């Protein structure tokens, strides 16, 4: 087969190319790097989608956010609405790769690469986001809890194209965070990551979401940890119990980045930090973005 490269000007161009067997590339920060590392060779037929203007931009409405598939991590981190109301997503995009990765890497690529270690997946899942998928036979919405079917696999047909991610607006008094364990400050992949989203009503937690990253074959929520938090007053013993439940709900593997036993132990630590940071934000306290680095020193400057 002859190697081919085309640049799509419109979504229709891109879908037509996908229909004839081409694979899409946007920032290339997963696809090309994966090929360099020997995970999978580059596709023989490539369609570049990075110049399709209609796939860019963040639209903020009363009902939530519409993220174009080509929105970069840099744009997400710089967006005031994301920082204020979808803070866990800002935490995640702020630590993807390096500033070079964040300038070109897109939210669409991050989600569709379906890595169980992707940073933005946990926050999007906890915010009930869904993927808008276009093809020659129409457009459909796939909730993110149905999108990832395994490491690197999705419920999307190769002839379909992700055009955007929709994120419903959270109820006021919601705080969120994403914290990951990392060995290096940039160009790092999560060893363990935890997302926490909590909504306060008076002094107690009315709703809670907890999701795990790099701790299972796909990013997924941990209902047992959420159940521990809901109805509690957010005190230290409740956070500790939810953190233990998070670790108990994980199924980590041994790999070059860490052993399963180490990951399970760290899941509890990172879950505790993520839940604490989300609670602090829900109470209106300031926690720096990204939460990962600020929580290493302990919230409020005290050592954890």
């Amino acid at each position, binding site marked *: 087969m002859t190697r*081919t490269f085309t640049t799509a000007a419109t979504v229709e161009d891109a879908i037509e190319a996908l229909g004839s067997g081409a694979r899409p590339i946007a920032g290339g*920060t997963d696809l090309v790097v994966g090929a360099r590392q020997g995970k999978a060779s580059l596709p023989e037929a490539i369609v570049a989608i990075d110049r399709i203007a209609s796939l860019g931009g963040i639209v903020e409405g009363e009902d939530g956010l519409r993220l174009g598939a080509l929105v970069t991590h840099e744009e997400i981190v710089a967006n005031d609405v994301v920082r204020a109301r979808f803070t866990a997503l800002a935490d995640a995009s702020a630590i993807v790769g390096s500033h070079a990765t964040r300038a070109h890497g897109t939210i669409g690529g991050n989600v569709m690469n379906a890595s169980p270690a992707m940073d933005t997946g946990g926050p999007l899942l906890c915010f009930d986001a869904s993927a808008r998928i276009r093809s020659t036979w129409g457009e459909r919405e796939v909730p993110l809890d149905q999108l990832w079917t395994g490491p690197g696999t999705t419920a999307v047909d190769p002839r379909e194209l992700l055009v955007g991610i929709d994120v419903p607006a959270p109820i006021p008094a919601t705080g969120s965070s994403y914290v990951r364990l990392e060995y290096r400050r940039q160009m790092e992949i999560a060893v363990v990551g935890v997302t926490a989203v909590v909504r306060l009503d008076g002094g107690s937690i009315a709703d809670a979401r907890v999701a795990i990253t790099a701790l299972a074959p796909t990013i997924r929520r941990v209902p047992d940890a959420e159940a521990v938090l809901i109805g509690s007053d957010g005190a230290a013993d409740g956070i500790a119990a939810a953190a233990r439940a998070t670790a108990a709900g994980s199924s980590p593997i041994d790999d070059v980045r860490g052993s399963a036993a180490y990951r399970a132990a760290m899941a509890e630590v990172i879950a505790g930090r993520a839940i604490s940071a989300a609670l602090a934000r829900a109470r209106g306290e300031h926690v720096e973005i990204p939460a990962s680095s600020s929580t290493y020193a302990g919230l409020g400057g005290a050592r954890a």
Partner: protein
Amino acid sequence: MKTAATLTVNGAAYPVELDPHLSLLDAVRDLIGLTGSKEGCDDSECGACMMLLDGKPVNSCSYLALQADGRDVTTVEGLAEGDELTPLQRALLEHGGVQCGFCTPGMLISATALLREHPDPSEEDVRIALSGNLCRCTGYDGIVRAVRSAARSSA
């Protein structure tokens, strides 16, 4: 099948024929002949290949050359104005920020991008921003001092 494209590097337009899988780094080094940008790891870990693409940093070893068609590429060779080094380049020399020099082109590009976004970064800001660039001599202290010094001298 090779595709015709125009790579604009440091302001000069180069008509080239590119294989779809060729990296921007290989195109700039091997087809255009600008060898300042280095290949360290070849998988986006080390930042030695960093260039600016439309003003934004990119790991050029992991970016397809054809995607740069018609965009503005800046390599380390394009930072100085003629023989006049930038304040950052001078600071790197003054603070001993160059040892073997292999990481220097990527460090310069990365720090140039940082200073455009954050004209007066803290030491922590510099260390985080440059942690996508590995120095095999471990000469980070001089590099960080140089970036902060250049920021202050340009302020």
